């Protein structure tokens, strides 16, 4: 299991990547701060403050982009600059790819935890149960890492894979109606209710926050099903492309 020991070094590499850090930590903090100040204490339709709603959605939405780190590292190490060096090592590349994924997920979770703490400390945002929020964040970051890896493996051109991952992130946010309300279409509604991971994660947290633990479990289970499907796809595509 020496491959798993590389997680530490991948973590060190990630912690030195300041641009990613700015994008995944600095930007959300600024956005959340601005939104929180603008929205103030306005009450929403359902009784929870709009601020709580928006901030939770934002933090979860940024989790959608967390997979980009995993994707970049897998591409660099297994397909581009360091490919031949890694292949010459007495190491199982599949396991190494897996450990990159784990490191990416952990990194993304850590960023999520920082954001949750920041929002609760500074703006007093109600996240419901902290442990539950952590679980949902974990599910979200795993899903996004796996989905991004599926993109990496299924498309030959890495640039296109990157664009696809952006489409995944921005598209889910768009469909969730964060930028502007979506038209009231049965298909879109169904997608938001059962497939859109952002809405699933948000509903899960929202349900637990307002006491509906069983519904929360239901949404989390739906998310897990998505993860399982994505993982199956990952195995299928990865077997073909893995060096």
């Amino acid at each position, binding site marked *: 299991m020496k491959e798993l020991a590389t997680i530490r070094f991948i973590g060190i590499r990630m912690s030195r990547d300041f*641009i990613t850090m*700015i*994008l995944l930590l*600095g*930007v959300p903090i*600024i*956005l959340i701060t*601005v*939104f929180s*100040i*603008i929205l*103030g204490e306005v009450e929403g339709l359902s009784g929870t403050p709009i601020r709580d709603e928006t901030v939770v959605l934002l933090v979860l939405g940024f989790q959608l982009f967390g997979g980009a780190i995993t994707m970049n590292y897998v591409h660099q190490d297994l397909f581009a600059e360091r490919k031949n060096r890694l292949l010459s090592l007495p190491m199982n590349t599949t396991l190494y790819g897996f450990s990159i994924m784990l490191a990416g997920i952990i990194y993304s979770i850590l960023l999520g935890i920082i954001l949750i703490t920041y929002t609760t400390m500074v703006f007093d945002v109600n996240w419901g149960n902290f442990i539950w929020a952590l679980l949902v964040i974990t599910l979200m970051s795993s899903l996004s890492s796996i989905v991004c890896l599926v993109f990496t493996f299924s498309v030959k051109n890495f*640039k*296109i894979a990157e*664009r696809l991952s952006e489409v995944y992130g921005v598209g889910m946010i768009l469909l969730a109606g964060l*930028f*502007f*309300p979506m*038209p009231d279409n049965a298909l879109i509604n169904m997608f938001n209710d059962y497939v859109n991971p952002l809405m699933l994660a948000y509903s899960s947290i929202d349900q637990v926050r307002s006491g509906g633990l069983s519904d929360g479990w239901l949404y989390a289970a739906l998310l897990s099903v998505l993860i399982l499907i994505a993982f199956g796809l990952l195995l299928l595509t990865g077997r073909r492309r893995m060096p």
Partner: protein
Amino acid sequence: MTIFRFALKRILRDKTNVLFLTLFPIAAIFLPTAEDGWPLLPLGYQYFGILLLFVSIRLTSIMIEDRQKGVVKRLAAAPVSHFNYLWQNLLAFSVIMIIQIIIIISGGYAYGHELYEPWNLTILYLVFMFTAISISLAWNSLYRSKESSFLIFMAVIVLMALLGGILFPVEMMPVVFERIAVIFPTYWLSEGIEWIVFGEDRGDFLFINGVLLLYALFFLIIGSIRRIS
């Protein structure tokens, strides 16, 4: 005009670029009108300013690429002045973005959107386009790599849109933010859109465009700096 023609070719050679450049304005035409009275224009037209910013940073990134690959160094040795290089590139970007503006305005007119004063809207978009290009030019001059410049500028665009009153009406924000909003060029864009819908004093519209042009000049002066390394 060699540089101009070459810049156009470089931009259009990239297939994703072409897709990105045509698909988004066309998609923007079909976005619905908001029901609750804000934004005033159809959503696609309200957010078109954001799209212009995105497009301009994407287009100007070929100038960073030139710097990264050392083309600028070779140009410095070639019998081409930096000024020539700059204006021909900028002209190429402008031509592409003008086409986009024409697409969205004529498309919206054909689709039957209520655009109030299409000609003035075109002028407003054109002026904002110049501002957007010079802002991204100035932004790019701060960076060494294309990727980091683009990624961080995305966040800046969202912030500008947010604070400038494109995503939210400025009146909804706290008073301090309402005043700070004036600093952002996006504020003047949303003011211009408001003028087009309510259209009162002609002088106001000129003033708004004047401010945007001054912004364009300001950022152009910063961005036109020649960085070889």
